[in-house]
């Protein structure tokens, strides 16, 4: 197995996709830890798995008896929208303000 599965190039791409920025020290620590974690989970690839083994998206099976029915898809106005907006970093007359949204001109 490759000693460094996550190379510097792969790492830079991952950081970009994750919408993160890292200091050089953070990047060095995190990339090392990621590679160590990948080595430890490599064991999973060696477990003999019957292809019919089902995927478990959670442990407890949900049956019709134990599952709540889905709620009707109805919209309810919030009693106090101003309270929700008060947590936003920047607002203007009930709208949340963000920097310029990048756009690309289509030919």
């Amino acid at each position, binding site marked *: 197995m490759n000693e460094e599965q996550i190379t510097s190039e792969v790492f830079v791409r991952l950081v970009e996709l994750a919408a993160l*920025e890292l200091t050089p020290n953070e990047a060095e620590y995190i990339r090392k830890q990621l590679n160590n974690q990948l080595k430890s989970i490599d064991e999973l690839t060696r477990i003999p798995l019957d292809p019919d083994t089902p995927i478990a998206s959670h442990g407890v099976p949900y049956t019709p008896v134990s599952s709540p029915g889905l709620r009707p898809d109805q919209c309810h106005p919030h009693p106090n929208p101003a309270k929700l907006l008060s947590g936003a970093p920047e607002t203007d007359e009930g709208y949340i303000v963000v920097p310029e949204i990048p756009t690309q001109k289509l030919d």
Partner: protein
Amino acid sequence: MSQLIELSAFEIAEKIRRGETCAVDVLVAHLDHIRRVDGCPGALNGDPAREPDQVHAFITLTAERAQAQAQAVDAKIAAGQDPGPLAGVPLTVKDIFCVDGTPSTAASKILANFIAPYTATSVERMEQAGALVLGKVNLDEFTFGSSNESSAFQPAPRNPWDTSRVPGGSSGGSAASVAAYESPLSLGTDTAGSIRQPAAFCGVVGLKPTYGRVSRYGLIAFGSSLDCPGPLTRNVTDAALMLKVIAGPDPRDATAATVPVPDYLAELEKGVKGLRIGLSPEYFEITYFNAENGQFETQPVPALMKNAVLDAAQRLAGLGAEIVENVAMPHTRYGIPTYFVISRVEAASNLHRFDGVKYGYRTPAQPQDLRAMYRQSRGEAFGLQPKLRILMGMYVSAAQYSEQYYNRSLRVRSLIRRDFDEAFDQVDLLLTPTTPTAAFPVGGLYGDSVLMQYADQFTVPGNHAGIPGISIPAGMDSEGLPIGIQLLGPDFSEDVILRASRSYEIATQSEAWRQARPAALA
């Protein structure tokens, strides 16, 4: 130490109902004690080494809220009304739950300025039952850790039994606040052992309910298929009392199961006669990854841990339980590597919502566009552990790797679940150590994200399987640090788990370690 703070939650509620004390007096006694032992609360840019002899469980004290709640309880008593099953009982809340009007930080800079606009269902139910919310307690950032050292709010909690040790995590503030008699109850969460491991390290009871037993509404999510809110208490009766209040379906959480909630207290004293309790060899050894040589190494658990389990088995057998040895749990060792994949994928997904737009931290710089704002805000405000989890989760779920890692892990999870299903065909409960060791020193493991994760080896399989589990105090090591034992049971068997735990508690009531008190109280 005031007598009022030594009372259990059950005793406090009884005394208040009988008019032998009042909620305001109970509150004052606890707040005075917190002032004495807790020291400064955790704060952004706080000094981790400040006041090393204090507990530091809290991030935010909500004394005024608790005062209003205490007065409301006393008014109900005066008016002859039912004040609720938790009348006047103090409560701390892990700061991963939203509580209306309080800072709800997840111990992260990215939510340091977030005031929750609503209250989590579990907290709301406890408040309606008469509990007094003392405040929000510290944790690993976004619950990502097993020691509390990753909190952005420093100083982080310390273990009340020895403040040079960690309290465990991620519900470290919860366990520390209960162990230090700052509160008889705390609400924590358990994703890989985050209730049970700190409970073991701090000598308290920690119950991880069945997935879906307690609503997750208002819980800031980490691993949505694994997270379970649950109680940390000083005795089993209080865990039963608290679970009864918080359990049950919730129209605001589609995963909260519509399974009837038993009267856990009524079941508690029924003993263990006839119960089949299993011991598994896979829970008497630890397998961990040695990054130095790239090999997996297996070692037996320390004799102290194994003997605590065998002693408990013997005591329960003496009370009429049947002990079944050699219950095979062959996939236990895969719990951690599977968790490395599943939890990271879910964490990465959940953490994308923190983007500096709707709430929380936004960079004060003036980024040129929205994408730069995302990157700068998240880069400046997430700590190392969230960044590590986001990147890992994105890598193992990427299209080219998801079959190799994520989908494979979900299949291994089926095998872990199958181990439990087959075990519970033979036995009613499994009895295991909670952790491989007692509390480790502050700084002992932090930084090595792989070794730190392996501290959860005996607890994480229960999260994969969704089954309930409890950690109960089971003695002390030679340095006076608490150790815990764990009982695991099939889905929705909390009543049986609590019953067996109570039997063990009674059987060990006269042991010297039951009389010991944490050093931080001296």
